[in-house]
């Protein structure tokens, strides 16, 4: 574990993106940031910048219009990174499965580490998921099981051209 990783694990920053669910899950994220549930106890802050984020919190079934934005956000985050899919519709589409403009779940686009079930998940479940994500993040950073740079093939697989 590098010098900075020690501190990063104490304060994982969250990047939140809604890919087309109802905003129920996003409301619960806001509620979790607020005093009653207070996810800041774990050092987690919601920051809108992918370049500084450690955890990507995705809600929604991934619509075709959002797909490329989601891929770009994922690629722009520094390694090691953890993806958390929140809500039933992130898991294979939920009630929106097989609609014509939907990609049926987050893991069809990017690899997912933690699943949070429920529609909408309770804030307690969300906290549980984030804590789990921090553990996975720690493990990833210890094992160095990530690519330093994305290889050309991976970028091609993810289907993003740099601009």
């Amino acid at each position, binding site marked *: 574990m590098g010098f900075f990783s020690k501190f990063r694990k104490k304060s994982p920053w969250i990047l939140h993106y809604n890919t087309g669910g109802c905003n129920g899950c996003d409301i619960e994220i806001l509620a979790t940031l607020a005093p009653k549930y207070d996810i800041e106890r774990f050092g987690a802050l919601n920051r809108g910048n992918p370049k500084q984020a450690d955890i990507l919190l995705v809600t929604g079934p991934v619509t*075709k*219009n959002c797909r490329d934005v989601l891929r770009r956000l994922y690629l722009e985050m520094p390694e090691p990174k953890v993806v958390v899919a929140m809500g039933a519709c992130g898991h294979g589409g939920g009630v929106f499965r097989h609609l014509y*403009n939907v990609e049926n779940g987050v893991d069809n686009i990017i690899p997912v580490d933690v699943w949070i079930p429920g529609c909408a998940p309770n804030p307690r479940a969300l906290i549980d998921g984030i804590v789990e994500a921090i553990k996975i993040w720690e493990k990833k950073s210890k094992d160095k099981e990530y690519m330093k740079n994305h290889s050309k093939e991976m970028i091609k697989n993810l289907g993003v051209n740099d601009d």
Partner: protein
Amino acid sequence: MINPNVEIFETTLEKVVEDIKNWYDYKKYHYVTINGVDEGGKLRIDWIFADYNEKNKMYVFRVTDVSFDTLIPSIANIIPSAWMAEWELRDMFDVEVENTQKGIFIKDPNIVAPLRKDK
């Protein structure tokens, strides 16, 4: 069964803009939306309005038997907020509407006219 307070004006595609223009008064009526219904190969279009003062009252300008390749006139000159519904009509039924562009909701070229029954 239709709500008793809905008044329906049957009209034709050529006359509808003229009719709405003569009737519409933005101080009294409230434009709601434009709605298309696929009635088996033919499109039915409703221009829907509500009343600010009278309870439950709604007005509908209805044009039936519109084929999918005719040009549908735009009312955005009379009602400036109508453009969104017109753009959506174009996306959802793949019909031509005056002064509109494709792609407000559907950006994938493989998806064509989802609300049409024959597609």
